[in-house]
């Protein structure tokens, strides 16, 4: 190395220290940038010596300084995978919990005047009618008014539950739209990274952005993310990102969502299930393979596509679908066992219908099941009917009958003809009905969902929801804690620490100063050589 080579060595030291300081500055200034990954300067010793025929074996090389190889992001892909897996759990539990909280806002009688209290009030009013007031119009009116309030509470709960479902459906549609947009955004970023890779740019900001989108995607569904090399020819290889949905039933990757610069569309079907399209390019053209299995003259799509069927999905979207479709035990088969809004709607309907049917039965039949003759039995007739005059009583349409309202029907005190004015055998049956255990059937033949009283059934509904919420809530807490721990671990690798950056700042500053001092020393050395030697 020549005399001035040492200056070059010192200069590279100054340059690399300055660059390292720049990176420290970049790290510090981005400490609060969401998704930012800590950067570090990759540097190595610059060696220019070589071996050759005329190389003297006695020549000693100190080296040629330091070389900056590039700037890298400090990231642990394994932690990313673990974090994203955990986030699909968090997303799943979080969405379920959010849905259940909405249902709970309708079906919760704790500490408020709701359906439970109204059942108790109705029984109380029947008790008052029986206590020395048999056949008195005022007390029959009290029973009637109480029953009407109960019907209104049923109507209100049903309408609120329907509102919850409608709002949830709108939210679900938005989220499906969001995930579709998310996939397109990832595809777009892939395209930009690809271009940067080809031109040799590291595109660190784009990768940070993509990682954030992948984190977001992982809450919506469980995904399998792989990075592979794409051969562009002439020995040029660039990175390719592939995202596949994980089939929860098999635990294996299923439909391809993004493959490099191509992505699929996700749409909602009428039954709330999701459809994943074949991969499309940026112009929406389906990417086709080289086979034509169906013989339609058009090559088959390159990747499989279809519906995310029952049991396949997992994550926030699947949880939302379950809230919208979960029929629980009211499902005609054993596939849809999750309890979503339809389960609680069906429960409420079952309670309203059973209550109305049983009350009507007591007011239209004697103990042996024989129909009561309204001409002989005072007040005989249906007490409840549908407000829209349709056949099936539901929580939404239950109403006291017009005949009861206008006084043509009243609580039948006795089913015996020519009974005494205080005969109350049938009122006693009404009273007993509220303590009677009644079986409520599920969707499958012979299945019994609950056996108990009206009040008990409603309490059971709340208990089922409460237990589900409690379980999901503790699951959520477990997942969230695990995700938080993993995020901290990830942060431990990728995050910026001020202490560390401060130390780095001092270290690089000292290194820069040392290189500067080196030049001063060399300058003094050269001064000696040039100006004082031989003088």
């Amino acid at each position, binding site marked *: 190395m020549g005399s001035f080579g040492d200056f070059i060595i010192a200069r590279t030291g100054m340059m690399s220290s300055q660059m390292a300081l720049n990176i420290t500055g970049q790290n510090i200034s981005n*400490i*609060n940038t969401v998704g930012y990954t800590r950067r570090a300067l990759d540097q190595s010793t610059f060696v220019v010596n070589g071996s050759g025929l005329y190389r003297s074996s006695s020549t000693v090389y100190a080296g040629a300084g330091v070389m900056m190889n590039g700037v890298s992001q400090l990231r642990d892909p394994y932690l990313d995978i673990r974090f994203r897996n955990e986030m699909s759990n968090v997303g799943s539990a979080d969405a379920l919990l959010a849905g*259940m909280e909405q249902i*709970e806002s309708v079906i*919760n009688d*704790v*500490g408020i005047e709701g359906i*439970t*209290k109204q059942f*108790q009030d109705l*029984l*109380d009013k029947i*008790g*008052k009618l*029986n*206590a*020395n*007031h*048999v*056949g008195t119009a005022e007390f029959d009116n009290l029973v009637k008014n109480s029953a009407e309030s109960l019907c209104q509470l049923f109507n209100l709960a049903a309408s609120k539950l329907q509102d919850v479902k409608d709002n949830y459906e709108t939210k679900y549609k938005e989220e499906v739209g969001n995930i579709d947009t998310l996939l397109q955004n990832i595809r777009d970023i892939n395209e930009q990274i690809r271009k940067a890779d080809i031109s040799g740019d590291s595109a660190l900001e784009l990768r940070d952005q993509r990682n954030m989108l992948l984190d977001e995607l992982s809450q919506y569904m469980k995904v399998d993310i792989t990075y592979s090399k794409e051969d562009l020819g002439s020995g040029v290889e660039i990175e390719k990102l592939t995202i596949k949905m994980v089939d929860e039933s098999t635990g294996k990757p299923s439909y391809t969502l993004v493959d490099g610069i191509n992505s699929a569309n996700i749409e909602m079907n009428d039954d709330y299930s999701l459809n994943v399209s074949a991969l499309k390019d940026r112009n929406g053209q389906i990417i086709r393979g080289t086979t034509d299995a169906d013989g339609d003259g058009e090559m088959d799509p390159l990747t499989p596509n279809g519906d995310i069927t029952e049991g396949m999905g997992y994550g926030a979207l699947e949880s939302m679908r379950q809230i919208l479709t979960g029929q629980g035990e009211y499902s005609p088969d054993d596939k849809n066992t999750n309890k979503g809004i339809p389960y609680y709607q069906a429960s409420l309907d079952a309670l309203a219908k059973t209550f109305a049917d049983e009350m009507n039965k007591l007011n239209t039949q004697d*103990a042996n099941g024989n129909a009561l003759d309204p001409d002989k039995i005072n007040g005989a007739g249906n007490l409840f009917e549908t407000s829209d005059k349709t056949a099936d009583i539901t929580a939404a349409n239950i109403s006291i009958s017009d005949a009861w309202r206008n006084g043509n029907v009243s609580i039948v005190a006795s089913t015996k003809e020519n009974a*005494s*004015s*205080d*005969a*109350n*055998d049938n009122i*006693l*049956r009404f*009273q*007993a009905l509220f*303590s009677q255990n009644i079986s409520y059937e599920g969707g499958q033949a012979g299945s019994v969902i609950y056996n108990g009283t009206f*009040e008990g059934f409603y*309490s059971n509904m*709340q*208990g089922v*929801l*409460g*237990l589900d*919420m*409690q379980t999901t*809530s503790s699951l959520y807490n477990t997942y969230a804690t695990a995700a*938080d721990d993993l*995020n*901290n*671990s990830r*942060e*431990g*690798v990728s*995050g*910026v*620490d*001020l*202490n*560390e*950056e*401060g*130390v780095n*700042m*001092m270290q690089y500053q000292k290194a820069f100063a040392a290189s500067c001092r080196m030049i001063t020393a060399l300058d003094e050395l050269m001064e000696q050589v040039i100006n004082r030697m031989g003088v």
Partner: protein
Amino acid sequence: MRVTTNSTLRTYRGSLAKATLNQYNAMNLVLSDGRLFNSFADSPARATESYRLHSAYAKNQTQQETNSTMISKFEQAHSSMQQISDQYNKALEQAMKAQNSPTGGALKELGTTLKGVAQSMVHTLNVKYGDKYVFAGADGDNAPFELTDDGELLYRGINVNDISDDETVMAANGLTPEEIAAVKEMLNENVYVDIGLGFSLDGNQEVIPSTAFDSCISGLKIMGYGTDDEGTPNNMISIISQLGEIYSKADEDGNLPAADKETADKLFGKMSESFTNFNTQRGTITSRAEFLDSNETRLVETGDNLTEQFTSIDKTDMADALTTFAYAQYTYNAALRVGNQVLSQSFIDYMS
């Protein structure tokens, strides 16, 4: 493990949020009078248990009201029977005077008085509690007793003297089959109410008598019905009424036909027997009223017990709530202090 500035901040932020939430919950616990849950999800087991107790309490309150109504009805009955007792004593006094062969028009006058007493007794027994006639058995909408102009006493439209436990006797007395059926119904009727005796129905959807209280008070049974072997009425009012009718027939010298005198003697002799029957019935009514009284005490105790139980499930006591709040506040303050001291400094603060 590498701990970064932001992971420290995030962990601190999370912990502070938890401490804030705890303090908020503890505050609500105090403000809501110690209420431990507001939904089934907060505590499914507590909420389910609480529902059962509240439901039982609601039933208990209805039973207490029913019991209280029944007590009032029986107090009314008891008071009326006391009046009947007084009226009987008055009648007895008049009858005894009549037995002592008063002279002049006094006997006739006594007869009129006795008829008046009989009429008063009918009025007393046609007393109402609320909208219902107390002594009407299961037909509370209609006045049970009626004294006809010729001194015959009707109970729900049927002459009490024609009534018997024996159907053939009633037929012989001229009652129609419908009337006989109605009498049989009257003698066996019940009006059950639920006063917390484990109310339940049997397989025929009829109440099991031991699980409910029979609120029916039959004026017929209290005052007696039918006649003895000699044709003398068993019913107190009927006896007094007939006695009054006979004495009313006396001439101005106080003389009665021999046959009437004999009938009057028999009726007079039967008075105390009818009163004994009445007192027996009064004892029954009293014991039923006493049962209602003791049942009320039991129901109130059950209600208090249930209140205590659901209060202990629904709520914590104020001392606990305040202790929880104080602890939450302590944790919150500690979190603030830690944050202030740990987070402000870093290496950069000490760089020269």
